[in-house]
């Protein structure tokens, strides 16, 4: 009984981590087709922003939200100064954002040094039989799910969401219907960045802050979103579900290396069976 509870917890936790690191990318790459190699550094930026705010004695949860905002604004700036000129030039975007990621790592290292004391949130632990579980991890699971649900609702049920989706699918038509597609792209990118930053802020207490932390997440995030396929959010959820379960179970039963490798192998098989991703058959949607 306890064993199965722990396994379930492992799975949910792994799934939530996948969601937190790839949700923002689901919007930036999944919807906008912008290959943002600096995605990992957006996460890192969120973590650092959160660190600064908490240092300013701001309550952690508020700090996390603020970090989301900060990274969102940063994203908008990046979109205006960089991405905007590169829509439709996928490989150039790849190169530019790679440069951006190097730049961000360098700057953050120069300012904060190679490593920082991570944000500290001690919510204590919960005892399950002879096991104990960090309460923050449980909160994290809830947060991840909530964040996903919110984003989904916003995209699926609001007018804004509809306009954005329309624009991403057919900018010309949207423009013809009087949508300011330019601003629409800008805001969507900003929103994606904000979600990413928030994700970063939320995992900061778990993994600490290092300028190079982004590198650990960027590949995972891309693989998750791509495996998700045509419907970015649903896809990301499903992909995170699959990968998280594989990772959670195998890492617990065997070792973490085996866990990570099996996730990647599962991704390959998945794409071999469903070349257009899990939701490819749905052909669109959110």
């Amino acid at each position, binding site marked *: 009984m306890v064993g199965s509870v*722990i396994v379930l*917890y*492992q799975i949910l*936790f*792994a799934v939530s*981590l996948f969601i937190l690191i790839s949700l923002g990318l689901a919007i930036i790459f999944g919807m906008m087709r912008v290959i943002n190699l600096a995605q990992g550094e957006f996460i890192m930026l969120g973590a650092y922003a959160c660190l600064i705010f908490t240092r300013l004695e701001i309550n952690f949860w508020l700090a996390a939200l603020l970090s989301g905002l900060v990274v969102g604004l940063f994203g908008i700036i990046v979109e205006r100064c960089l991405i905007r000129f590169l829509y439709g030039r996928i490989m150039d975007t790849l190169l530019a954002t790679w440069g951006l990621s190097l730049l961000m790592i*360098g700057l953050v*290292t120069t300012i904060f*040094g*190679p*490593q*920082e*004391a*991570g944000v*500290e949130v*001690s*919510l*204590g*632990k919960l005892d399950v039989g*002879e*096991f*104990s*579980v*960090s*309460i*923050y*991890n449980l909160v994290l699971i809830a947060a991840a799910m909530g964040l996903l649900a919110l984003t989904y609702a916003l995209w699926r049920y609001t007018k804004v969401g509809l306009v954005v989706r329309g624009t991403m699918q057919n900018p010309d038509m949207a423009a013809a219907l009087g949508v300011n597609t330019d601003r629409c792209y800008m805001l969507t990118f900003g929103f994606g960045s904000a979600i990413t930053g928030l994700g970063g802020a939320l995992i900061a*207490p*778990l*993994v*600490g802050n*290092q300028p*190079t*932390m982004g*590198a*650990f997440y960027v590949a995972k995030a891309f693989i998750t979103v791509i495996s998700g396929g045509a419907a970015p959010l649903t896809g990301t959820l499903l992909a995170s579900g699959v990968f998280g379960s594989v990772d*959670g179970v195998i*890492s*617990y039963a065997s*070792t*973490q*290396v085996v*866990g*990570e490798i099996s996730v990647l192998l599962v991704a390959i098989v998945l794409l071999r069976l469903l070349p257009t991703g899990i939701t490819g058959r749905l052909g669109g949607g959110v």
Partner: protein
Amino acid sequence: MRINRRQFFRTTTGALGFASMPMLLKSAGIAAEEPIRIANILDKTGGLNIYSLKQIKAIALAVDELNKAGGLLGRPIELVFYDSQSNNQLNSQYMAQALVKDKAAAVFAGVTSSSREVMRPVVRKFRGLFFYNSMYEGGVCDRRHVCIAQVPAQQLSPLVPRVVKTYGKKCYILGADYIYPHTTAKWIQKYTREAGGEDIGVEFFPLDVSNFAPALARIQAAKPDVVWSILVGSAHNAFYRQYESTIGKAKTPLASCMFGIGREQTYLSAQEAAGIMNATPFHDELPSEKAQEFVRKFKEYSGEQDYVGDYAEYGYRGVNIWANAVKKAGDPSPDAVIAALDGVQFEAPGGLVTVDGQTNHAVMDIHLVKTNDKQGWDHLETFKQLQPSDTQAVCDLRKNPDDNQQYTLSL
């Protein structure tokens, strides 16, 4: 290039008085002499720099002092720095540059075993002298290579029995997944068994793992008395926090032979870091004249007030050991210095260091410590003049000086 080096000094050591600056050389009365050039190749950028940044400055500091004191053999010392950017390919390129272009009399380089193994062949090809100022798994037998930091036998022979005695017999070992932790784990198992304990689990993690939830669950299932951490690097630092929020040192204490060398305790909250037992050749709270003087000098020199740590001290002792060998040899050329190395001594901040000519490793004091709740260490006990016995068991440079391989230590 020279100009660039100067720029480097300003950027690294801040706008501090720097003895290699012309006017300071004059004041030391050695400006006119042909300088002895040495090189320092370390990772200022990239994931590994948490181990390097302090050592880079400590080496500059040591060179400074020597110049202020009139240099070596009446000649000033010039320091060339290369940032290997946590990239082994650059390590080997820069080693070649240092030896060929700069004609460096000695090169102080490397924090990882892989970078060391990349550079040793180059050093051999160009007949240089290579100081590796970092703890490692031991077993390198190469007269062109000098390691003045501790090897497992030195660190673990005092530490493990104490851990078994204080915390209990059943231990669970976690390590980063590369050679050093693998080797170290074996030593911990060996010494634990010798002390009448048992190891009930050993696990290794890739350096980029930062989610330890699965491991923590397995540990709880195994119920050890003490958990050993040979985790390395910034990502693994997350372990200590996650451990505290899941199991807690109060329930199952932690011991480590790595914690602290990356100054980990300063990256964690006091309560997360407190109470981890370790053994090290140097720590800031070491109650000795030399140690406290070094800490003071370093902080003043670097303008940084945070924890200094043992990697800074390794750099400092490395340069001084080399300097003493040069004085003994009366000639800075690598081969002369190598010939003179045997028995060279330096009264280092961490205690007396003597080069063991059989292995080109060092005999040194090891201090048993435990993190306190002020992100520093409590000094428990000092073990005097420990031999690098594990490496001595496989290597004898006096007998076969042309040996140049790394032996895997048989237990």
